[in-house]
């Protein structure tokens, strides 16, 4: 039998067991970007993510050889048209440089949008490094992977795969209200 002195200990472990079972499957959704990253723009400049802090950032980890990423461009274009650049900035980073994508290919994609469908992709484009640093950290599950960061650079929302303008806009509106 359990002695009176051991009872609180046993009850504590039972309680601990319950709590563990309840919270074991939970993951935290909103985390901070702990490490800033750098990328190369199409002009060859090195930029850092923290250069864009102060605005809500829509970070689009994409690739040229990815059909959903091309469809995503149409949705990002709507964001570009409907939100002021004072409040929201879009960064599309080609994260498949380690698999052979180049700045020429990325520029070719932007030109193709302009020439084929008369859409100007008028936001910042950049490339990951050859080691795939950004890919490994932010887009290891696939492309496109989208993040919405608040004005301080904290990740407010993330989504792997194509995301519609409406869903993105809802999240942007939420983070704009909170900031």
């Amino acid at each position: 039998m359990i002695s009176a002195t051991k009872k609180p200990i046993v009850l504590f472990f039972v309680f601990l067991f319950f709590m563990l079972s309840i919270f074991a499957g939970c993951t935290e959704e909103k985390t901070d970007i702990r490490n800033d990253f750098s990328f190369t723009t199409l002009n060859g400049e090195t930029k850092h993510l923290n250069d864009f802090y102060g605005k809500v950032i829509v970070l689009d980890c994409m690739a040229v050889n990815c059909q959903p990423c091309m469809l995503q461009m149409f949705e990002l274009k709507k964001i570009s048209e409907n939100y002021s650049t004072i409040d929201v900035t879009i960064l599309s980073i080609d994260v498949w440089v380690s698999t052979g994508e180049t700045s020429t290919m990325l520029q070719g994609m932007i030109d193709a949008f302009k020439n084929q469908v008369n859409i100007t992709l008028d936001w910042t484009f950049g490339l990951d490094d050859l080691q795939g640093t950004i890919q490994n950290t932010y887009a290891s599950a696939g492309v496109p992977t989208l993040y919405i960061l608040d004005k301080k650079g904290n990740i407010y929302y993330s989504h792997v795969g194509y995301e519609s303008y409406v869903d993105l806009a809802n999240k942007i509106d939420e983070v704009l209200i909170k900031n």
Partner: protein
Amino acid sequence: MKNQRTFILTLVVVSILGATAVLAAGTGLPIGTITVSPSAPAALSTVTISVTISGEAPSEVRVNVEECNGNTGICYPDIQNVSMPLASSSIYRTDVTLKHSDATYITITVVAKINNAWQESSQKKVNLSGTQDGNNGGDKGTPGFELVIFVAAIGVSLILINRKRVK
């Protein structure tokens, strides 16, 4: 209406990707049509990819196979880059085993090194027919270890309560 829009968008995307590939590779490509066997392979199956390359013999031919899920709009990062040996006159061939159980289509690009310069084919999209047996580690919604702990916790509690009553 939505389907029509999706269809038009897909056509636009294919044309953009085609234009991008042509811009990247230049014109006058000697890389011919890419053929896939079976023509509608299943996810996780092995696919035989063949291509005809005319003109000067390339020193190296490789194929990039990318797997995507059209429902979720994801392309997976583990692109397979496989060498294509010469199978017969001007025909290069290789087998590639697909990795993702939930992929709904693959895109294939052949690159050939001709006169020390890499030339790239246009991208070929192949829809997958379905999924073969096998689990690629995805979460199928089955109970996890937390459920086991939960059941164990209830069991231990019931035993303790019973003991207390007997006492």
